């Protein structure tokens, strides 16, 4: 999954221009309240058919870290090499 597609969806949800959402921005600085942050996490999971838990998001503080988590989870499993 393309990282920029995840970011674009996140910015649409938050109604923020992508230029104003650098990877090192803290999520709590760009999202006005914690309820909206919960909503954002859930909407992104719905959008990309992912299931994350509180444990998965522990330590995720910046936009870049969140994008990385989604990207890692959406990466297709490596295919075995044909012999």
């Amino acid at each position, binding site marked *: 999954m393309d990282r920029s597609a995840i970011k674009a969806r996140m910015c649409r949800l938050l109604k923020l221009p992508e230029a104003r959402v650098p990877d090192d921005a803290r999520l709590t600085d760009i999202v006005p309240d914690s309820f909206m942050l*919960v*909503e954002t996490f859930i909407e992104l999971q719905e959008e990309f058919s992912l299931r994350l*838990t509180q444990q998965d998001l522990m330590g995720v503080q910046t936009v870049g870290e969140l994008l990385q988590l989604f990207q890692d989870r959406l990466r297709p499993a490596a295919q075995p090499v044909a012999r």
Partner: protein
Amino acid sequence: MSQAMSDNELWVLSFYRTSEISGSLFFGRLARSMRPGPLQRDMTKHFADESQHAWYWTRCIETMGGRAHKMADAYQDQYFEAAGMPVNYMEVLAITHVFERRVINQYAQHLSVPGGHPAVKQTLKTIMKDEKWHIQWVRDALLEMEGEYGKDHVRATLERFQKADQEVYRKTMKEQEERANDLFRRQAERL
């Protein structure tokens, strides 16, 4: 404001009102992002109920001759601080289950204090009927989710939020002890 209503009583009722508004807004936003189905159906009713409860409290306060305070924080805000944010529907429902039980206990405790204003008693009774349904549908939905998330994981999540609830309640009660004691003393004196 009528003499029957103290500042502390107005504060407590305004606090209930703010918590109902916050709950309604939160569930309303979540319901909007859900796929149509039973979960969305029940969450839609849930947020409509909470919104109506806020209206009941506003009406109750006005019946008593007061005007609701605008309050910065709701009880729910402290939950995320203590328990961390829920990040999926199961975690949202788990925290909701714990929270709704706390609300109904708080309302029952308030109702049990003798000498309360009839408008407050009626409002508490009306809201508590809805709260019982809230607990029931959330519990049923969590049972349903055990298949997807695993029974042990659902239970562990509930336990984690219960611990956080106890912490938040202790903290809140400490902050509100003076107001609550004053309110309950005044009510007893009215008898």
